[in-house]
């Protein structure tokens, strides 16, 4: 399996093939429903968001809490389709990669192509396995959202299947 290093660039994305299984290593942000809503509400109000999305990859997950001495709890992907409504705006603000599970809407697939971004699928229901691929985790924004806060994760050899390009 090919290793891909993050942050992603458009040159890296050009080399990816749909359906290819790759191993991702590097930094990602996490965000799911509540964080997506807050990010887009803030952007639509013309205000600054607490994280820069430029060149970023968002992993759709809401992990279980880390045990004492652990990095993170179980952290598999959540259903990406629920983020569809918010994705085009985030792509416009520099988001380049997404990791989740399941199909995306037609509109989002078009938006991904337009921005030369990429959507990866990872293995749903394998949260314990995927937790071993996370080397560091830190809440960087929206702490009040609990499991829905935005985390900065460092992943190593995190399995992902190239979905939409």
């Amino acid at each position, binding site marked *: 399996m090919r290793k891909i290093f993050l942050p992603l660039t458009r040159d890296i994305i050009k080399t990816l093939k749909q359906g290819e*299984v790759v191993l991702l290593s590097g930094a990602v942000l996490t965000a799911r429903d509540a964080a997506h809503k807050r990010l887009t509400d803030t952007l639509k109000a013309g205000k600054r968001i607490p994280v820069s999305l430029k060149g970023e990859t968002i992993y759709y997950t809401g992990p279980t809490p880390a045990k004492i001495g652990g990095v993170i709890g179980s952290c598999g992907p959540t259903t990406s389709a629920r983020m569809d409504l918010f994705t085009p705006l985030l792509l416009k603000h520099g988001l380049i990669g997404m990791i989740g599970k399941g199909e995306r809407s037609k509109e989002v697939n078009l938006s991904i192509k337009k921005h030369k971004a990429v959507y990866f699928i990872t293995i749903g229901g394998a949260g314990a396995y995927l937790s071993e691929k996370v080397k560091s985790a830190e809440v960087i924004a929206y702490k009040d959202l609990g499991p829905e806060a935005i985390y900065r994760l460092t992943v190593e050899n995190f399995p992902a299947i190239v979905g939409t390009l």
Partner: protein
Amino acid sequence: MTRIVDSKLIQDAVKDLLTKANTCLRPDILFGLKLARKKETSEKAKYCLDVVIKNASIAKKKMLAICQDTGMAIVYLKVGQSLAIKGDLKSSVAKGVALAYKEGYFRSSVVSDPLIRKNTNTNLPPIIYTDIVPGNKINIKVVAKGFGCENVSKIRMFKPTDSVSNIEEFIVDTVREAGSRPCPPVYIGIGIGGTLDKAVSLSKEAIFRPLGKSNKYKHIAKLEKSVLKKVNRLKIGPVGVRGNTTALGVSVLTYPTHIAGLPVAVNISCHATRTAELTI
């Protein structure tokens, strides 16, 4: 003879059952996944199932949640009518749920109000169903179901004159539309009959049946077999990467219904179907 049970015993049982359900994959489901692995021919489908099988062993070894979506806890209580409970039953169940989620490091996934949406941070309240049955025992069943598969579950009120093939088509369409969102290969619980609520309730109860067992009625067992075959012909496959196993099994439960109706509920449950039960 009346038997007295301390509610603390029920609290401990609820806690243990939810801990077990969330960390130890049901042996019948694990066996079903291993069987599915043998049936796959594509390297990608095999790889995905290998990861899912490995996930179960990591979760068990580390006592880690099988899936980060540890669900909203559902607790079914079948209480013997000759049983007296010392203490408050429902608050003991709630305490058992809260302790399981806190001590097991499971995710708090419950919001206090469906529209205001503030996390309760305790995974409370649970959903509790009680039933009074003969005897002096209490049977406790728990479900920790993620919402990836809950969100794609469905009910339809058929006409009494609709055919079995209409019903089959509805179930297959529901699985097709769900695609890879509910984390296939799924276990499909079906409730047929009763009322709107009863059909849903049956579809939920259906996934407690061990995988591989059929309904005791021949015509229903035949329906289960036929639906499973049709669903697997969709080739959605493990994780949605295309493959031979889209569903591990189909379990149908039925109940008498009204002359004017034929409710059918489809409860799609992911490959990490998490349930546990105990009788005290």
